[in-house]
């Protein structure tokens, strides 16, 4: 999974390492609390479409890795639950200029127990804060890797994924 705040570069990250152009799947959400009467007044507002971009990497003849960029809107947590169930882990992309945007994702993965790494997406190579400063600011434990990345570059995205899988493997073996 690739998570992070709106506009932090999730789809860019997926596209950098995916073998296909990122695809978009949409889920139609119907507001469960809407009464029948609402349909007559606000027919177009009772459903919301949640879009999710994803890519794929064929690792072996019988092994395909899918990268799902999580829906940016925090209120669609239940879709995350769906993704978390069989996921290897999550890369939480962080724009250090808007650190607070990643709080919901970090909270979510800490609570769900899914292994995750923090990847500081340096726009134009800028990394105004060191990983240790961010660790301090986010109150992240020493076990969670914090790396710098550039979501536009394949090598960086690949390296972030390797860090994540290594971390997930360590977590399983512990």
């Amino acid at each position, binding site marked *: 999974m690739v998570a992070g705040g709106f506009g932090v570069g999730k789809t860019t990250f997926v596209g950098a390492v995916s073998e296909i152009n990122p695809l978009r799947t*949409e889920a139609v959400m119907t507001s469960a609390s809407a009464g029948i009467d609402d349909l007559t007044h606000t027919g177009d507002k009772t459903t919301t479409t949640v879009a999710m971009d994803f890519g794929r990497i064929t690792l072996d003849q019988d092994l395909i890795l899918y990268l799902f960029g999580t829906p940016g809107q925090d209120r669609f947590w239940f879709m995350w639950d769906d993704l978390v*169930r069989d996921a290897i882990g999550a890369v939480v992309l962080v724009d250090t200029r808007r650190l607070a945007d990643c709080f919901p994702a970090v909270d979510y993965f800490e609570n769900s127990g899914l292994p995750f790494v923090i990847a500081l997406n340096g726009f134009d190579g800028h990394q105004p804060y060191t990983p240790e400063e961010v660790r301090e600011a986010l109150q992240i434990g020493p076990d969670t890797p914090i790396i710098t990345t550039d979501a536009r570059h394949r090598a960086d995205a690949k390296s972030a994924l390797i860090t994540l899988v290594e971390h997930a493997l360590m977590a399983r073996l512990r």
Partner: protein
Amino acid sequence: MATPPGGHHPYDGAHQSQGENAQNRFNFPSAPSGQGGMQQPYQQPQSGHPYVQPQAPRIQPVQQRRRPEPAPTSGNHNPLVRPYAMTGGRTRPRYQLAIEALVSTTADPARLQGQLPEHQRICRLCFEIKSVAEISALLSIPLGVARILVADLAEAGLVAIHQPGGDESAGGQPDVTLLERVLSGLRKL
């Protein structure tokens, strides 16, 4: 929603017994012999009861609601189909498919004749292995609908589904062997 539990029969019985009640008032002893035994339970209390009339309005609306039932069948020809019309209104598949579950088909194209157009499109797509997410994206159908349609095809034996290899003892999380394979695959990229 359309078909009341128990089918039409109880309503038919209730309706007819009510009709007979009208006759019963004039000719009570002969009424029970006319119809099958099923109707007796409805008939007896009503005919013997002084409060027969107030029950009529309660039964009538049910009769009226049943009449529009055949309409949805003819409505299928409408080209503007809401997504869940393809699934017959079902919003949940028979079993839970992971979004990344892989779908493939080896079905003979001849077998696809007579399937729903959406089912045919999915099958044609899955001659090469695809995830449920890809089916949804490539055919522009919402994820929930894709899940249901794929589950239908699996049930009909037209596609094979490869659910992701999770470790049941670890709550579905990937096992160590899988993680090692993913890691070595990523390093080779």
